[in-house]
């Protein structure tokens, strides 16, 4: 039978009553994310050449790209933040920011039924834009 008066946790328990808490008071005190932590995908529409490599390699099929329509879209809630698209991008159009994913509600369903967390970009159409620039 173990000695019931042996309480090795007692000193620390008493110390805990007077020491600073180990937890943070979250909304008032936010720990910055570490550098290199994977968070949200950021897209640069200016440099993208719509090669569709990111969409093909995405394991979660979160990226939709259309070369003809110059359209690039991501479902942030489907994205698993694996960083594969950033690694395969030849044009460095994609980057991984450390911000954690934002919260979405059902109220954010888009007019065409886009899911919450849907983000899309439309690039300039090079076929029409190039001759117009040449005339001027």
């Amino acid at each position, binding site marked *: 039978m173990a000695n019931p008066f042996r309480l*090795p*946790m007692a000193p620390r328990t008493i110390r805990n009553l007077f020491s600073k808490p180990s937890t943070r008071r979250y909304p008032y005190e936010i720990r910055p994310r570490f550098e290199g*932590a*994977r968070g949200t995908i950021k897209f640069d529409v200016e440099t993208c050449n719509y090669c569709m490599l990111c969409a093909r*390699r995405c394991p979660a099929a979160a990226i939709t790209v259309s070369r003809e329509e110059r359209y690039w879209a991501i479902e942030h809630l489907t994205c698993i*933040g694996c*960083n594969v698209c950033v690694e395969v991008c030849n044009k460095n159009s994609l980057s991984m920011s450390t911000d954690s994913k934002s919260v979405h509600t059902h109220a954010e369903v888009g007019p065409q039924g886009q899911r919450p967390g849907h983000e899309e970009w439309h690039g300039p159409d090079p076929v029409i834009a190039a001759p117009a620039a040449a005339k001027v």
Partner: protein
Amino acid sequence: MKRTIIPFGPQHPVLPEPIVLDLLLEDEKVVDAIPTIGYIHRGLEAMVDRVEFTEMGFVVERICGICSFMHGMGYCLAIESIMNVEVPDRARWLRIIWAEISRIQSHLLWLGLGADAFGFENLFMHCWRMREEILDIFEKTTGGRIIHSVNRIGGVRRDVSDSELIAIVAKLDELGKAFDKTAKVFASDASIRHRLSGVGVLSMANARAVDAVGPMARASGVRMDTRLTGQNLYDQLEFEPVLETAGDCLARVVVRMREVRQSIDLVHQMVAKMPKGDGLPIETKVRGMPSGETFTRLEQPRGEVVYYVKANGTKYLERFRARTPTFANIPAMIKLVKGCDLADVPNIILTIDPCISCTER
């Protein structure tokens, strides 16, 4: 005597994940226990015919949130052995460093859960505070706290600088000192001893008979550890598995506590022995499709895990299977539960460190 059946689970305060045990009782003694699994079966193994083998690594990692790194590593090792890929040395060392750190993380998590199960909430919080520091190491080095996504067929996706590795070792040393104080509580507190000592004894012969794996077997004195095979560079390290002979719940706690210390020592050795320098290769380009079949074994925090991969030369694998340690330990758990008191059932179930997500995949 009149018998009663008590359904234990799927929702029970001590169970982190759903499993059902139908306990057949005579008075307060458990006569029989019938396990039912399948509450969180997700069919991840069957996804191989829809997910390309290069992307399957991300799926395999999601089998379980606690041993996610080792699952990803085991899958990559299996594919690499089929395709005869030579993985750069630094990547191999980095993999086992992360693997040992994830073992520390898993054991700290379990020690906390165990403390919570036998009603020691204060200790639970101390264990989880220490685990948080390990998760910080993971977030710094791999980019993710739980799902690391850092293994790739042919190597790893991120390098860790030498200065950062030294910082990690220093941090683990600090953690080890804090852990020793907590370990003293686990080993000597009267209420813990009273609750765990002599409860759920699995003899060495029984452990061999039911094929227990991991800390469960080692607590019964069975010298079994996949790391002893020397694969994955463990042959270059001084390593001797932690053994206890009592085989009761307390011995299983002690084995895991000593393994935390051991893993810290192993990380020390690994950082000392790995090739140093910036710009060393961390991955090999892999071309072509796998063809053939293979088994890979790894020592996870909970015991031996076996991966079976069969590939047919296309980008989709034909079969993938993971035999996880908890699945192997369930017969041992049933054996222990039979004949114990109803009040000891939670402790016995928890001390096998059940990971139901792994078991059901």
